[in-house]
């Protein structure tokens, strides 16, 4: 199967096999919009997010490695000491979690002792967390600052690196999609929103952008010689880039998901709620959504943003105008979405040469550009040219 995967990779690379990511972008955008709406609506339907005590304030006790997992013991202990209703959950095989509303320090210590007696465990098996009422607000505020700083830095960085703000804008728009959908999925699972989860969401931003960088870098590479040829349109070239990096995208998300999945598994099933599970769930969904978003949202969005530019439009018209004659001349049956011509048997062939140019000037210009690329594509490291 790996071989089949690689063969597909090869065909995607040449453009012989091609998925119309850019061409069908209306459909993708529609689906994306539906997802976004669903992701926004879902938390409302569920009655808001399930915020953890880090945001609501309160006390939490964890009794680990206990033989006795009777929930009522915990409820009684809290009732006796503070007169409050406690939420007691059996979060993992031998772990009990007791959540209460705000207790003062005295009560916190007392409940801790009560739980030790009730469950018959030692002092080293009861952990407690106390969260003040304003802590969650504080965390959210810090995270919003982080989010703003990160977005500004990354937007600048991408705009500088790609020398076009449109890539930067497309990438960030896609990020919004990733975050909204991931948050929606997270809320659908009913997991608690904790600072760990928020850290996870912020990490997704980085991961999603990381993935986008790789694909955009390939787009950049494919577009560099765009104007020196009349075979493929801008759209086809962008689509080719997405197809060419498709195998990488899949492999990347798989190698990204495997370790995160193992944290999620361990965190959710063996350890119960906590740092690991929350970070891992946010990352798990985020990696998948991020990879999909790069392919279906960010890259097509960039293509849409650039497509209207005067130089691109001119070039596209040029290519499409020349194409029918050329296809006929070479017996090309169709051109794939990635701009690779196929013959009647579905085998890839080359484009026939351009019709003889009438003007010598234009021809020269094209040729010189061609040479430029040849020369600049060379770097010192690759000069060890022994292979040929």
């Amino acid at each position, binding site marked *: 199967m790996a071989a089949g995967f690689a063969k597909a990779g090869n065909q995607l690379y040449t453009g012989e096999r091609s998925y119309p990511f850019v061409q069908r972008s209306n459909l993708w955008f529609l689906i994306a919009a539906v997802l976004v709406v669903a992701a926004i609506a879902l938390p409302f339907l569920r009655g808001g997010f399930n915020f953890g005590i880090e945001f609501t304030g309160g006390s939490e006790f964890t009794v680990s490695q206990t033989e006795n997992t009777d929930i009522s013991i915990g409820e009684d202990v809290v009732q006796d000491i503070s007169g409050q209703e406690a939420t007691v959950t059996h979060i993992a095989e031998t772990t009990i979690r007791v959540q209460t509303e705000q207790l003062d320090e005295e009560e916190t210590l007392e409940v801790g002792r009560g739980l030790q007696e009730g469950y018959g465990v030692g002092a080293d098996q009861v952990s407690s967390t106390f969260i003040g009422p304003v*802590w969650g607000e504080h965390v959210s505020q810090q995270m919003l600052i982080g989010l703003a700083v990160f977005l500004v830095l990354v937007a600048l960085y991408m705009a500088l690196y790609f020398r076009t703000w449109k890539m930067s804008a497309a990438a960030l728009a896609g990020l919004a999609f990733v975050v909204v959908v991931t948050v929606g999925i997270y809320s659908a699972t009913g997991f608690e929103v904790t600072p760990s989860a928020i850290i996870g969401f912020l990490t997704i931003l980085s991961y999603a952008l990381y993935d986008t960088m*790789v694909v955009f870098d390939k787009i950049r590479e494919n577009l560099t010689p765009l104007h020196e040829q009349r075979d493929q349109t801008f759209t086809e070239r962008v689509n080719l880039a997405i197809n060419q990096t498709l195998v990488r995208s899949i492999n990347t998300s798989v190698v990204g998901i495997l370790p995160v999945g193992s944290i999620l598994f361990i965190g959710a099933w063996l350890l119960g709620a906590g740092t690991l599970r929350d970070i891992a769930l946010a990352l798990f969904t985020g990696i998948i959504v991020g990879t999909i978003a790069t392919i279906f949202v960010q890259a097509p969005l960039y293509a849409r943003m650039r497509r209207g530019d005067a130089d691109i439009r001119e070039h596209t018209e040029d290519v499409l105008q020349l194409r029918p004659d050329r296809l006929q001349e070479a017996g090309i049956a169709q051109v794939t979405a990635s701009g690779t011509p196929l013959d009647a048997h579905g085998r890839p062939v080359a484009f026939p040469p351009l019709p003889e140019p009438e003007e010598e000037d234009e021809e020269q210009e094209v040729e010189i550009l061609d040479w430029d690329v040849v020369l600049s594509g060379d770097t010192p490291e690759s000069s*060890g040219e022994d292979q040929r």
Partner: protein
Amino acid sequence: MAASTPVRRARAALIVLFLLLIGMGGGLAYGVQQGQAQWAPLLALDLEGGTQMVLSPQVETDEQIDDDQLNQAVEIIRQRVDGTGVAEAEIAVQGAENVVVGLPGVPDEETRQLIQASAAMEFRPVLEVRQDAAYAEQIMMQDLAEDPDLTDEDRELIEEQIEAMQEDEEFDEDEEALPEDFDEPAGEPEHNSDLNWITPELAADFHNYQCTRELALEEREAQDPEAPLITCNPETGDVLLLGPVDVDGDYIDDASWGTETRQDGTPTGAYETRIQFDSTGTELFRESSTRLYGYEQGSPQNRFGIVLDGQVIVAPNMLAPITDGNPRITGDYTDDEARNLAEQLRYGSLPISFQIESEQQISATLGADQLRMGLLAGIIGLILTAGYAVFQYRSLALMVTIPSLVVNALITWWAISLLGWTDGYRLSLAGIAGLILSIGLTADSFVVYFERVKDELREGRSLAGAVEAGWQRARRTILASKAVNIIAAVVLYMVAVGNVRGFAFTLGLTALIDVILVFLFTHPLMQVLARRRFFASGRTFSGLSAKELGVDVLYKGAGRFARRHIMHPDPGVAAAAQPGPEPAAVSRAQDVPDIPEEEWAKMTIAERRKAREQRRRSAEGDEDEQSAQESVTAASSPSPTQEGGDR
């Protein structure tokens, strides 16, 4: 031989990596041998058990707390906690203004209050002074021992002396003074500097007082602003008997420091600390300084003590009555000393207490559980990732990805242990999550790189050539995308508070290590392997066989590939596919091999282009009928049309 260049580079890179590994491992081994470091990373409280408190500063007024004041508060908490004898307490400012205190075990009520309580600053007149000789000597010797100019031998000698002195102390002790030894005061005290404050009990206590850096909370709380106070300056060993409070630190408006000047305005070369009192403070200090100035210069009663958190930080003489509320403290200070004093005074002007925002007590059992589970998750993640890599890339994964992951793990482990040694860095559960996530990101560098190499192979290059050309492109992509990761990690680290901070830290650290490793290990390894017959000739399971590449490759012997179809005439690809000292010529020679070089040079651009097109057309015409091998032959056979080029 030209071939040696990449190999030489590869070897150099691997040697650098080897030296790096030796350096890190050796450094750590040295630390372990010295008993200062340990091989295993230090563990944070959520893995080891203990209590972590996140505190937020509280002030009574609306004033803003600045960084210096917060740092000063942290310094005071640190001294207090150290004073309780709690080992390994960690106190740090995190995020914008949170203070995170980590303590092993469960702190008692007293420690809790010590951490939260604000520290008061007071100006009290001095009544009597005495030296705690034994303590002072000890301080002096300790300072001496820390002198960096000393040789180890001298230092040992001094340390021995200090030990001897500490043992001696019990013998050396003066006889316990008793209240009966002192006279009753002559009358009721009339002002704060009045010696009538000194009762026989007080005098005896003063005489018996032993200076110590650590002050118990009860002693601190017992201090009454309306009553005399016995305390000491732990820096000098002076024991002071102080009158009631003259001026409260709250009345300090600001404090600064600068160069000390003489009357005529020339600098003395020393530094001074300046205090600005507010209007009430000015009034009170005028009163106090006038009274103190009335006593003989140099006598105890001429001095006043500035008390911070129960201990004297400085006790200067009053050289003049200060009426404008702007006293200056001089005394041959260095800039550091003057600044430090100014910071303490500024803190004193705004006593900060702390509110516990969140507190987490992790039992040792839960900590051990979490550590075990974290490690288990890591191992499973590592195995799954390695397994997938082998599935996708066969022996290349075995030879490159897995060793890369192993070396990466080794460096990360050592880096964390070294940071634990040098900076007290502790690995938290979130940190472990960051490490596990980074397995995927590390493996991805390889995926990006290797997919590029495959692309180059599809362009019909030899493996060695594909590795070089693929690297040119992959390097750029890897650096660009890792930069995003590092930006994210740094930003997260700056804003996060508490355990989650560890996540950002390990994420950034591993991204950095990954970049280093891709350059120093993964790529060099590929360069070397590319020259191995097993890979270069595309054997089964090499991850590069025709079947696995899914490409119609044909072997031109000696590990060279050629493509049957050239269906992607992309100048960019052609550029990358033609590195070399004369890429244009090489590409020319390949496209139209049947035209001699001299002849080509004479042709016009239009003619050349025409020749290329004709050549290409004739090659394509042959393709369908001929086998791959034949098409290569055809490519080198002269074609009559090209001979017709104008000369």
